[in-house]
């Protein structure tokens, strides 16, 4: 195992972009290769050593043997783990936009808050955010209709707007509260929310499952009540308790399934 540690030494107000510094690219780089490498900062590039003290321990034959650790606030570090297909990355602090975007494999753990577009267009791997995440987590690229197609996103804090927009596969677990329009335009996949949802989950969804264990603020008109199920099986997983099942969004002839905890959402019955 090769452990590469980044300790910040100078803060940049302009964000650094790290999509080229992922296990797939750097598994055979030595300490000075990494320090010399110039990352994009705004419209220029500067060496990593301007901003970080880099420690390298051990050796790796391939990306799966790499562990990258970022110590401290990475609030101006974009594209961490973007496009990675193997290995582990841990960030002990907050991250900027696009963390884990286009991930194909491996794992990325953020022990802090994440900015928007975390896990955009993931195809595989595991993204865990132990803090809150802003808008468009697990979403697609702006304009595209093909979203996350695989992998697992776990959010232990709250999630912002349009979580899992255009979800086309994969799973999203939000253990806190979620803002409006989660699962908008989704066609496949599974979203499970432990906390409360403000409003409008599943707008224009065509297919897939959204399960909400907390209280829903308001439901879209495009969802039709189908029934109340006890201990239902949803997306191959078993859940205990009573759930209200809706089908929608009928506005787009959707066959998506929205499951709401019946006890918490009695007002809808």
């Amino acid at each position: 195992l090769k452990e590469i540690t980044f300790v910040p030494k100078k803060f940049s107000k302009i964000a650094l972009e790290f999509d080229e510094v992922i296990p797939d690219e750097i598994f055979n780089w030595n300490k000075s290769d990494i320090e010399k490498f110039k990352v994009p900062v705004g419209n220029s590039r500067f060496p990593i050593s301007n901003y970080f003290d880099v420690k390298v321990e051990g050796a790796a034959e391939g990306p799966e043997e790499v562990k990258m650790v970022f110590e401290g606030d990475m609030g101006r570090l974009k594209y961490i783990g973007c496009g990675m297909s193997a290995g582990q990355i841990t960030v002990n602090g907050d991250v900027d936009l696009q963390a884990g975007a286009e991930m194909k494999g491996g794992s990325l753990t953020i022990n802090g808050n994440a900015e928007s577009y975390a896990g955009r267009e993931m195809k595989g791997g595991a993204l865990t955010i132990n803090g809150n995440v802003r808008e468009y987590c697990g979403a697609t690229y702006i304009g595209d209709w093909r979203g996350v197609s695989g992998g697992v996103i776990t959010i232990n804090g709250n999630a912002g707007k349009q979580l899992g927009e255009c979800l086309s596969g994969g799973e999203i677990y939000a253990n806190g509260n979620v803002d409006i329009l989660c699962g908008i335009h989704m066609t496949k996949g599974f979203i499970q929310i432990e906390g409360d949802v403000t409003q409008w989950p599943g707008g224009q969804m065509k297919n897939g499952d959204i399960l909400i264990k907390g209280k829903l603020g308001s439901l879209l008109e495009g969802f039709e009540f189908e029934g109340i199920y006890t201990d239902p099986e949803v997306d191959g997983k078993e859940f205990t308790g009573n759930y209200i099942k809706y089908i929608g969004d009928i506005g787009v002839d959707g066959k998506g399934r929205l499951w709401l905890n019946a006890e918490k959402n009695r007002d809808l019955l």
Partner: protein
Amino acid sequence: MEYIVKNGIVYDPINRINGEKKDIMFRDGKIVTDVSSDAKEIDVTDKVVMPAGVDPHAHIAGPKLCVGRMYRPEDERKGVVAKTNVTRAETGFSIPSCPATGYRYSRMGYGTVVEPAVPPLEAKHTHEEIISIPNIDVPTLPLFGNNWFVLEYAKQDNIEDLAAFISKWLKVTKGYGVKLVNPCGSEAWGWGMNVHGIDDPAPYFDVTAREVIRALAQANEMLGLPHSIHVHPNDLGHPGNYPTTINTLDCVKDIAKNSKVRDQTIHCTHMQYHSYDGTNWRDFHSAAEKIADFVNKNDYVTIDVGQVTLDETTTMTADGPMEYDLHTLNGLKWANKDIELETASGLVPFIYSRKNPVHSTQWAIGLELFLLIDDPWQVSLSTDNPNAGPFIRYPRIISWLMSNKKRMDMIENQYVHKAVEKKSSLATIDREFDLYDIAIVTRAGASKVYGFEDRGQLGVGANADIAVYDINPNVDDPSNNPDLVEKAFGNALYTIKDGEILVKDGEVVKVKPSHTLWTNVVGFEDKEQRVFEENIMPKFTQYYTVKFENYIVHDQYLPYPTEYKVYASK
């Protein structure tokens, strides 16, 4: 500045030069017969030399492109190339940024590209966009087929006033020729309808496509414009639409040509989309043989193909109702644009899949048209960019045309769907284009169709627009080496435009501003003035949301104009 392009093997069909080893000389941007001993030498020994390419039909500038770029950011992120010392950054695949459009055409050895659908109301914007496209000269074709003034003149069969209107509107929009898109159909779309066939009248105006096509063809010939009418017929992309196409071509048969610079009286565009038999998408099959047969028997017709390239692309056309149909078919996002008294356009992303029986058959129909039309002067290469595929695929299409082996590989190894063998005759055609044929369908033919005398050829006095490709015709066998052909035509060794070297070894080394080509009809001014004052202006003031003063394309929109003067009725 003098140059001599030495020892190349020249294909210049307009001057009947077929693979002769000869030098091409130019001075101050024009081809000449000799140069002094100071001339700079460009050694291209045994490489293919052709006039720079002429694209007869590619949507590269205008409001549709802008809407496309705005609503498809996911396309813009493809094809990103960083800036160099010479070029600006490039973005986009099917709808590239304006500079990228110029660079990419330049790399393929093209020099002139026709923007074939400009709503007159948006002509100003189109010309602004052309200013941002470097390295290629751009003529534009304003849309007339659903224009309210045209519909009324056609209804009254008032050809002289219609000709005066066209003559005036070419000056107003700085346009080159007359374009029709789904005549009467796009007007019907304003009422939520379409027309089917050429005898189905438009609502309110009660005029048929037949009347509009004939009226515009007669007016076009009365003026003697350098290009014939340029028609996108009704019923695009509908199974069983080939009779409409043949009726469209047939309805102008008796109209006499009044131009020495071209051979045709009607140019039918993206013919692939208009050559369908069957009644629905299940029994849909090719009618390319019937269309090709008609074209072979009628020399007043020219076409471009609109070859499907099997890519994810963006469809965009001034055929509003067709785009809505397409959106209901594939369910992808749809944009619609209404242009007041003139037209209605739409956009839908489209994924042409090689595994899909319909898309594969469309691919085959395009190639059938190329191969079944005997005279290559009647058929030009286009993808209706970006509708059937982006223009950067031209080199690949050339490789398909030159190699039967490549086509059969794709069919037999089921790279394309096996429906190709059942629904088209492509697998039975073994014709292969040679470099001379390719020079016709990619430059000389299109140049002739547009009546250009200064380009598309390497004769003395022509513009020094030259392309050199890395193929040695004495050694290389395009039939057995399609990959080489694709690479060579995609990365010109040299692209020379107006005597300046713009591309060397596939890299853009120089950027120059584009010229805008337009037609100025002389000798119709009195009639224009009368029609304009008596008929046009009252309606213009009543119905348009803009003032005429803000509608007209002023000279500053054409910083580099190339004006073609036409003396009406001569």
